[in-house]
């Protein structure tokens, strides 16, 4: 599919002239293009939704850095797979899961976790660069792993990505409440009979799966734009445990699908479109929050009097 699509994109770009604008946006032959990238749009939609959901827990558990760390090892795994000529998604999964288990087992305390990630991350990135340097194939493949290349998603891969995302979705649904409890206060959750260690390790595995999927679509360097930014934006405008996940999934969906659709006609990678949309949503949410804190208060007046008394 990549080979079929590449000339089309080039023609579309050339047809619109060589100026920057037409390289960024071009909607000539849009209908035909859309059919060709149907798979990518589906993959983006699923990733946006499930990524937005898991992001809510990533934020609550203060694990943005862990996401980045896992994605670098996922990149190393994918690069190794590329070099060995095996399935790239599988390689990416192996790298992700190894990183997730190491971080989950060794880094139960936040401080340990950050230092472990800080050590793992450059190692993973270095390995990945080594594998890519040894790889003799197309350079587009190399670049794609770091910065995303969703148009290379073919049918079998797409099924992989969707199945993995559904596993993550179900996993999160089943352990929603114990995971929320553990994220808020692990000591109390443990006292209340939540198997906190198993819950956090399972969460790390789900996160590893989700990162591996994201690396395929948006690239190892930009995973945070779909696994952290939508949730961070949602948490700016709501504190409802129902609304925050819904908004975060919506933001993820809009960023991923919107980015793919906008990128379609131009000749540039999709990642900057996705990251820009997701960043814009975040900015808007901050503005809404700032306006709101000026005008609204959650507590009834009189509370301050009681405290001062």
């Amino acid at each position, binding site marked *: 599919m990549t080979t079929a699509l590449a000339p089309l994109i080039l023609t579309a770009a050339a047809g619109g002239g060589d100026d920057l604008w037409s390289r960024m946006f071009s909607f000539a032959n849009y209908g035909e293009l859309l059919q060709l990238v149907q798979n990518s749009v589906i993959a983006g939609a699923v990733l946006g939704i499930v990524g937005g959901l898991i992001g*809510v827990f990533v*934020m*609550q558990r203060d694990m943005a850095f862990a996401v980045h760390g896992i994605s670098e090892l996922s990149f190393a795994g994918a690069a190794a797979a590329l070099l060995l000529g095996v399935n790239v998604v599988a390689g990416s999964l192996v790298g992700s899961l190894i990183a997730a288990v190491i971080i989950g087992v060794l880094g139960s305390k936040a401080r340990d976790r950050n230092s472990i990630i800080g050590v793992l991350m450059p190692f993973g990135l270095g390995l990945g660069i080594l594998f890519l340097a040894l790889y003799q194939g197309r350079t587009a493949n190399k670049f794609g792993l770091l910065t995303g290349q969703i148009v290379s998603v073919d049918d079998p891969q797409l099924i992989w990505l969707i199945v993995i995302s559904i596993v993550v979705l179900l996993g999160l*649904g*089943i*352990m*929603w*409440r*114990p995971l*929320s*409890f553990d994220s*808020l*206060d692990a*000591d*109390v*959750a*443990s*006292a*209340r*009979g*939540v*198997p906190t260690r198993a819950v956090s390790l399972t969460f790390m595995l789900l996160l590893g799966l989700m990162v591996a999927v994201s690396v395929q679509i948006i690239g190892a360097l930009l995973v945070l734009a779909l696994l952290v930014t939508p949730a961070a934006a*949602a*948490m*700016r405008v*709501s*504190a*409802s*445990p129902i609304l*925050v*996940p819904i908004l975060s999934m919506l933001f993820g969906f809009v960023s991923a699908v919107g980015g793919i659709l906008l990128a379609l006609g131009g000749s540039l990678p999709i990642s900057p479109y996705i990251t820009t949309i997701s960043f814009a949503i975040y900015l808007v949410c901050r503005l809404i929050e700032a306006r709101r804190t000026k005008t609204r208060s*959650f*507590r*009834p007046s009189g*509370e301050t009097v009681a*405290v001062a*008394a």
Partner: protein
Amino acid sequence: MTAAPGAPAAEHEHGHPGAPVLSLRGARLGFGGRTLWDDLSLDVCRGEFLAVLGPNGSGKSSLLRTILGQQELTAGEINFGGEPVRRGDRRIGYIPQQKMIPAGTPMRARDLVALGVNGHRFGLPLPRRGERERVDELLESVGATHFANAPVGTLSGGEQQRLRVGQALAGDPDLLLCDEPLLSLDLNHQREVSELIDRRRRSHGTPVVFVTHDVNPVLGMVDRILYLAGGRFREGTPDEVLRSDVLSDLYQTPVEVFRSHGRIVVMGLPDTHDHHPHNETPEAS
């Protein structure tokens, strides 16, 4: 809401009948070569308020972890409700140290309390019948109804701690374990939170084990004190334990205990940081 210091604490109707709720026999806990406490035998009966005092590192929090089944005894036994303690026993309500919940946490006051009702349950988070009413009831019982829908991250330390009491009461516990629940609260909130805990004891006879570095906020409620220090302990009523001769013997250094206006001040402790009544330093435990 006027439990004056020194008022008799045992006015609940349940008295002290029957088997102890919690009992330790010849219990020892040590790490490596160090013994935190040894030959500790203790019964906590219905309606009792036991305060656990002692300096940093004396094993107060470890005692709580032992009761929660998260820490094995080195020797001896510990029973809850007539059986050996086990991990995650939901008949125990646990109130942790006050830690501020980060702003932006996607949780309202009522959701924090609801975790006490269903937070341990796996499965899709669909509401069950009666849960909402139960949460409302709990919010009411800790005086949190008027901020029930406020994001937890916007609440004061005292308000968050009231919610934690509500969360701990959700399982209708047979024992309340409190780990420095008043730490870093101002005096008003200290009084409010400790009264909530005491009210549960009076209305339901739920015994309380209350770890604290400052006994004054709960002095009027305490039936007995377990004082841990230097690998040894003393147990008894406040009048029996909080005395210059007893604590001097326990610390093996001269210690003075003063009483003024219903407050107790201990002077000359080896680590005075921990024991000054108005101390705000968080305790590493």
